């Protein structure tokens, strides 16, 4: 698996989402919880708008100077005994990681949550090589047991409620307890502890890499990140090439934005910063450290109108407010990156061909743009995608093009427009009854399948205005 999940068509994915009441209930209540938490914790920072602007500025500066900071980061990591590998593609990244594991004769990998390893499909590659891979983030572990892809970038199992989770544990691990969260979590802890102690390799993502010191920072709530990076003898961190901050000062600001925007916390339970390998005299930490920096399409976005999409710090605030996501769930996007940010970056990273519906999966209500802690104009970028799909990719339906070309003529020719205000009502007459259309033709059908549509008025405004003027003359 890579970015794309499943082979179902967009229409079928949306249908499955809408027809899954358990998922929708779980998503809706999680959205409310996460959104309310975010808004509360934003207030605690004082002027949130100023913080957002600062976040945006830091991200823009970093991306504008990405080559410089990447070089600085590499130098610093290597100076502290680490190895850096720059992977242009998913294959290159997987190949490198697999080679390291094979060289170490590694049999078991424990993983902390990492979206970029989902993106490159790392688990499948390693499992094919006979390596046992254990996800140790609770949500990811549940999904791994159930062979189910993530539906959210922060809370990957958000679509499952506790009863669904109990069923997975019972079916796959012989769990006999209740569906109480504490009991379920205790069970997961016991199971996972054995894996931590027996793993040869720890693989993590990276929320932010600090260029000035070569430090990898992980933001987690479960402590699995620390166990993954301190117990196995080899640590491999995988990061998207844009996940970088110049210094610890910017790290402070972006972590402050991330934890609040993502989960409404001032800080998460664990913020782990790892600089270099275990040094002489130190008692823990891996003796070998690899940082895999993944491009996989990102450098193509730099310098384009979509560059701000790389500002993303993967907080999911946009997902947590998205009404479309609420009704269809993450899997309907067909990408491991769902929601508004997913609809923006998926076609950029994986092409339009398999994802050309995503930019339209938005009412452009701009709740996403408003929530983004680094001010990515998400709804505007979705329109930019639509422009490309129409003009460059030529993937818009012919009927739509005809309608839009007619629209242009209509709206730029006052006489044609005026005529339409007169004939709209008679034209819709065959479908009109009691001043409404309940079974509309052509494109109206989608609307009238579930909603009534009004009939055009007997007299247009402009016609009324004319009579009024005459009356007052």
């Amino acid at each position, binding site marked *: 698996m890579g970015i794309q999940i499943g082979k179902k068509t967009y229409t079928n994915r949306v249908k499955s989402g809408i027809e899954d009441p358990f998922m929708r209930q779980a998503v809706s209540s999680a959205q409310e919880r996460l959104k309310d938490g975010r808004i509360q914790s934003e207030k605690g920072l004082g002027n949130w708008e100023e913080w957002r602007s600062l976040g945006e500025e830091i991200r823009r500066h970093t991306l504008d100077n990405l080559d410089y900071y990447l070089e600085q980061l590499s130098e610093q990591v290597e100076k502290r005994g680490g190895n850096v590998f720059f992977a242009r593609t998913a294959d290159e990244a997987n190949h490198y990681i697999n080679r390291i594991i094979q060289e170490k004769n590694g049999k078991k990998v424990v993983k902390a949550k990492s979206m970029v390893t989902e993106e490159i499909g790392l688990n499948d590659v390693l499992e094919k090589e006979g390596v046992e891979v254990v996800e140790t983030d609770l949500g990811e572990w549940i999904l791994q047991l159930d062979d189910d892809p993530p539906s959210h970038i922060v809370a990957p199992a958000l679509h499952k409620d506790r009863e669904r989770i109990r069923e997975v544990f019972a079916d796959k691990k012989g769990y006999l307890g209740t569906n109480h969260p504490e009991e379920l979590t205790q069970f997961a802890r016991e199971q996972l502890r054995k894996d931590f102690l027996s793993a040869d390799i720890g693989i993590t993502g990276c929320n932010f890499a600090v260029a000035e010191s070569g430090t990898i920072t992980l933001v987690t709530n479960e402590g699995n990140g620390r166990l993954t990076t301190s117990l196995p003898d080899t640590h491999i961190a995988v990061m998207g090439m844009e996940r970088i901050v110049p210094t610890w000062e910017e790290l402070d600001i972006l972590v402050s934005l991330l934890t609040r925007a993502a989960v409404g916390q001032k800080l998460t339970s664990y913020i782990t910063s790892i600089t270099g390998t275990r040094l002489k005299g130190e008692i823990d930490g891996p003796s070998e450290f690899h940082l895999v920096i993944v491009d996989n399409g990102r450098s193509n976005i730099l310098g384009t109108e979509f560059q701000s999409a790389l500002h993303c710090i993967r907080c999911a605030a946009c997902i947590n407010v998205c009404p479309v996501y609420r*009704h*269809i769930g993450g899997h309907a996007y067909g990408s491991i990156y769902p929601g508004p940010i997913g609809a923006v970056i998926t076609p950029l990273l994986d092409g339009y061909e398999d994802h050309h519906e995503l930019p339209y999966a938005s009412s452009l209500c701009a*709740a996403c743009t408003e929530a983004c802690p680094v001010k990515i104009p998400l709804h505007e970028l979705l329109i930019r995608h639509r422009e490309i799909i129409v003009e460059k990719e030529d993937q818009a339906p012919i009927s739509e093009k005809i309608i839009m070309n007619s629209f242009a003529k209509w709206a730029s020719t*006052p006489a044609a427009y005026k005529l339409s205000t007169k004939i709209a009502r008679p034209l819709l007459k065959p479908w009109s009854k009691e001043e409404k259309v309940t079974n509309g033709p052509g494109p109206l059908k989608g609307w009238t399948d579930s*909603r009534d549509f009004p009939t*055009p008025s007997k007299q247009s405004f402009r016609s009324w205005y004319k009579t009024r003027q005459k009356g007052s003359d």
Partner: protein
Amino acid sequence: MMKVSLFITCLCDMFHPNIGKDTVEVLERFGCDVDFPEAQTCCGQPAFNSGYLRQSKKAMKQMIRSFEHAHYIVGPSGSCVSMLKEYPQIFVGDKEWEEKAKEFAEKVYELTQFLVDVLKVTNVGSNFKGTVTYHPSCHMTRILGVKDAPVILLQNIKGVDLIELPKKENCCGFGGTFAIKNAAISSEMAAEKSQHISETKAEYLVGGDMACLMNIGGMMSREGKNVKVIHIAEILNCR
């Protein structure tokens, strides 16, 4: 006398002319000299938001031409007005149109915004009576930034019993061509909005964007609910 040119919006022109009448009368009541430039058509949003930039620009140019002589341009729609406000951004770098678009956009106001911010009217002295819930449309609030004006105006009408709409910030699911292209999702969103409106038990749903009201109203009509759906201009002009 303040000279105001009415931007009717194509939707109100064809489907809801009474909202145009109410807008004209309210503005006149507060001393405006209102005219209606007849060459106006549509703001271009249906094409622009669907990715048809070239096509939408034709509509936009027509709009700019139509209002060349206007002092103030006022329209009863947060969404259409926010589209007009984006023209300068869209014509950046266009020698012929950039400056015109800028001049044009500076003159544009949404009705409640114009009443409160320009005319400094907060009490319209309307004679309306009933329980009302207000849906703050997404483009009106998030893009145009008009959040308080309509609420202030409603609160100051003596007979209006304003009940807060639960999760009022949620989109109703209209979204222009979204309502057709993604009809299944759109109607789930409309149904959710309708549910929240029912929870208020209000007699009237009021909004500042006819497109959203058409969507929510269409859903409630199909569901057989008898909540009356009205545009804020209708309340403001209730004598």
